[in-house]
């Protein structure tokens, strides 16, 4: 923040950074070849819903936008214990021989741009893309909107996570995605949908 905004106490809500999401499809291929993790084809966006008609309209618009048409995903919303809303984009299971996340990323991007257009961009927290390997391990690629970075989240139980696996994934994806360098930002998302 600049000297002047600090002096006058006028911090502005931070706008979301939507650029990096389209790098996910190629990163997913790398993850599959390097570590054997296959995307589930689902995705979720976590945001803060505002009270009032403005937000309700925006949310209805974007649910209609994504769930329209043939082969469109099922879209549901739910609220978590921290007061954040999760918008779940539920696709058919993806073909491991031909994993293509482009359509999913387009859908997630549509969620973000709709919210941003209506002025709710500062409420976007993160986006989650779940992966699983043949051993049954689950991991999510989490995109932090405000930082514009990704980090891996691998829960192994209700309150435990596999840090070694997360670091392996970070190293595998290094150079493909902007990865969160500050480990304290690797939010624990216990009970996140799809995991």
């Amino acid at each position, binding site marked *: 923040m600049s000297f002047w905004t600090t002096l006058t*106490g*006028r911090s502005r809500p931070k706008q979301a950074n939507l650029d990096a999401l389209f790098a996910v499809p190629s990163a997913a291929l790398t993850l599959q070849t390097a570590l054997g993790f296959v995307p589930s084809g689902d995705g979720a966006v976590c945001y*803060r819903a505002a009270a009032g*008609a*403005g937000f309700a309209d925006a949310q209805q618009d974007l649910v209609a936008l994504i769930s329209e048409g043939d082969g469109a995903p099922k879209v549901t919303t739910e609220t978590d214990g921290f007061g954040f809303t999760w918008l779940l984009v539920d696709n058919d299971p993806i073909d491991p021989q031909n994993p293509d996340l482009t359509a999913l990323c387009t859908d997630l991007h549509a969620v973000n741009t709709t919210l941003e257009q209506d002025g709710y961009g500062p409420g976007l927290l993160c986006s989650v893309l779940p992966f699983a390997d043949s051993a049954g391990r689950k991991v999510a690629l989490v995109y932090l909107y*405000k930082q514009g970075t990704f980090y891996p989240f691998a829960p192994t139980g209700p309150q435990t996570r596999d840090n070694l696996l997360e670091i392996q994934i970070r190293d595998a994806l290094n150079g493909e995605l902007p990865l969160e360098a500050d480990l304290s930002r690797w*939010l624990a998302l216990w009970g996140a949908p799809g995991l």
Partner: protein
Amino acid sequence: MARTRFAADTGLTTRMTTVIFLLGGLFVALVVGLMYAFPAYAWLIGIIGIGIAWWQWYSSDTVAMKAMRAREVSAHDAPELYGMIQRLCTLADMPMPRVGVADTDLPNAFATGRSPKRAVVVVTTGILRRLDAEELEGVLAHELSHVAHRDVLVMTVASTAGIIAGMAGRGAQYGMLFGGGDRRGRNNNNGIPIWLIVLVGSLIIYAVSFLLLRLLSRYRELAADRAGAQLTMKPRALASALQKITGEINKIPQQDLRGSQPMNAFFIAPAVSGVSLSTLTSTHPSLEQRLAQLARIEAELGRPNR
């Protein structure tokens, strides 16, 4: 194109800038006055005054934690509180502060520390017990806004003139005791000793700086309310938290509250209810004022798109 739902409050900004400007003018007047009154010692008084202010700012986190007997908690000790602050910090893109819990039944919260990287956010067990998760989040967002606005630094710098004026006044009292020790005092043929001028002058500057400081503190609270409500997008939660906290604080007897009086400027709601002159000297704006602002923000947030 990204649109914003948050109108800039130019009125508040103008008022705050005016107060900061007046405080700066006061500081300049004080320095000039001191240099005229004690040409030999003015620099010493100035350096000690600024040194005290600097120390107050530099050690604000440790001193405040000790004064409130707060203990630092980790993500393991208080996962819900920690997770809440972590989410807010991610949303606001600011560094994660240290989190403290003070074992007192007084429902309150404060943020302090010399910079956002060295900040600490403290909540009392009383506030954890009384507020629900949504209200607590509103309070935490308010405190994090204080951190983002560097309120400890701004308020400390703003109070420097008052500290120096207080010291000069004390120095003038010694002058009175020893008969106006310096030569200028004795040579003054008009009969008014120099120490009296300094004493009256510093008292006036101290009083004016005190009122301006309180005014600035109230504006900073409103700014933090606004930024906090914009962060959580739930102005209603902060409003209901404020109603709960201020309602309960006023009911608690004054006697028990003296212990935490020096920390009042950093609290979310003052622990001592004002009696007279309260609108001029209180560190926090009135509940009505705060609720009115939150209602405006909620209207901005909920405005229909079409």
